[in-house]
């Protein structure tokens, strides 16, 4: 566990950031920005969450980071190298794996085949790997259902497939886009338990969530996105006790 994970408050300018987003503007229609100069950063080993309501621009930000949307202005660097202009496949190859909103599993492939697809862009190529074992250790339920078609699984199990598939890419940064969306409370708990276990293993995670209470529990730091701008940021614990955040996002 590195220093930044233990004391996220001590982050200073000269500390190397794994992901650094500075002042990005993103639009779907020319001239109409959806993100108005968003800046955030994630250090290695950190879990950072991005809170925001529907339409705040959370998924837009994730899509821009994945190379699905062009960035009009600003800079995105990963481990010091610019990600701008890279295609989605190049970004995955650079070490960023994404669990997309709405899961998007390959429903007519088996669980094992879905996981194998996750290893697609690994340089070593496709082949037997200790990662199957590690992923099945994390998700025993998937080990039981490895030969079942992913489309026949429940929503929670499909979310596990999507997360396990992302881990198969051996990413250095995991982007999770609303992993709890549309799941029953018990399954949401399970998904956040898993995020916690990823974090304990030292995985760097950027988590986008509407479920602010659960997200702030697993995160080290948090950003709040409103109408395309970051309006708050800080330690998860301090945001959790902030009256304004409690009123707007935690329903206290």
């Amino acid at each position, binding site marked *: 566990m590195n220093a930044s994970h233990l004391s996220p408050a001590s982050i200073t300018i000269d500390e190397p950031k794994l992901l650094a987003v500075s002042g990005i503007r993103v639009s779907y229609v020319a001239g109409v920005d959806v993100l108005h100069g968003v800046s955030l950063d994630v250090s290695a080993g950190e879990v950072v969450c991005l809170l925001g309501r529907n339409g705040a621009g959370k998924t837009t930000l994730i899509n821009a980071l994945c190379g699905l949307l062009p960035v009009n202005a600003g800079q995105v660097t990963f481990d010091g190298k610019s990600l701008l202009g890279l295609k989605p496949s190049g970004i995955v190859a650079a070490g960023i794996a994404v669990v*997309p909103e709405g899961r998007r599993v390959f429903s007519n492939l088996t669980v094992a085949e879905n996981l194998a697809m996750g290893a697609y862009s690994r340089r070593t190529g496709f082949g037997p790997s200790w990662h199957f074992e590690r992923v099945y250790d994390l998700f025993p339920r998937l080990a039981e259902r490895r030969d079942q078609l992913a489309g026949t699984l429940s929503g929670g199990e499909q979310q596990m497939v999507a997360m396990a598939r992302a881990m198969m890419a051996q990413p250095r940064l995991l982007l999770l886009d609303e992993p709890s969306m549309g799941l029953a409370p018990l399954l949401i708990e399970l998904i956040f338990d898993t995020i916690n276990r990823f974090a304990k293993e030292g995985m760097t995670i950027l988590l986008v969530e509407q479920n602010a209470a659960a997200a702030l529990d697993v995160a080290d730091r948090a950003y709040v996105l409103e109408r395309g701008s970051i309006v708050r940021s800080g330690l998860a614990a301090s945001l959790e006790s902030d009256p304004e955040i409690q009123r707007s996002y935690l329903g206290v």
Partner: protein
Amino acid sequence: MLRTAKESLSQQNDFASATSQNRNDWIVFAVIVSILWSVPLSLGGFYLYLGLAVAIYAISALGLQTMVGLAGQLSLGHAAFMGIGAYTSVLLQKTLGLPFLVTLAAAGLTAAAAGLLMAQLIRLSGVYFKIATFGFGIVVHQILSNWTALTGGSAGVRGIPVISIIGFQVETRTGLFVCEALTLTLIYGLLVRLSHGKIGRAFRAIGQNEAAARSVGIPVPRYRMIVITLGCAIAGIAGAYLPHLMRFLSPESFTWYESLTCLIMITVGGLGSLPGAIIGAAVLIVAPEYLRDFAQYKMLAFGVLLVASMILLPKGIAGAGAALSRRKRIHAR
């Protein structure tokens, strides 16, 4: 120590299903190829003629299956690429006197180039791509019918040259069938091999869910180009044989109706299944020959067949066969 044993066991489980699928596909390959080589040649006569037609459309359907069944890129203009291959091959033979192996390769390359052009022009996905391929097919048919100086227009091309391979003249139907069966065997084998490799997995991923394919790092646009080009190239190779069977070449062999027939072939045979493409081609070529008295109802029969197969056999004949053999195995336990 214990952990390594556990790991290797789990790996075996994960890859056992993949290898058994691989083995099954090659067993089916062996069965289909042996039927292909034995039945038309031993029965001869009319059956040989049927075999010639089935082999051509089976090759073409394999190309369409790769595009549509595996990678989900539905093309409504497949026959146009057969036409491009047919005209390229015959015109090169007639005007330049090139040997058939060269013109066959040229047919594949020209159709591939046209396919690549289509894929580049039509950078659309979903239903827009499908509709645009339909338009592309019609444009090609119009060019073949109206560019009289090059293609002879709607009157067609007569005097199809005899196939000559390395100085050996293929004058008999048996010889032509051997050429076609060799081509079909080769392409079918290559596609089975491809479908189990990295490229085949990428095709299947795109066919199932483009967004998910992108999220695991598959370069979707590149693989779409590759699969469309490949499918069209195979159609071109199939097309190169057609004039030698018909001894005549006309644009009317490459209408949208023929494209639709190719689609019905892979649907009835089983979408996504390579053997299904061959079985579907056989059904749609052989059945009308035995129902000549009802020729005017052919279109109606195809439509009914398509609807019936979608309701009764949603995974086609090949899918039903696979389900049957699975059920047998379960009962045998």
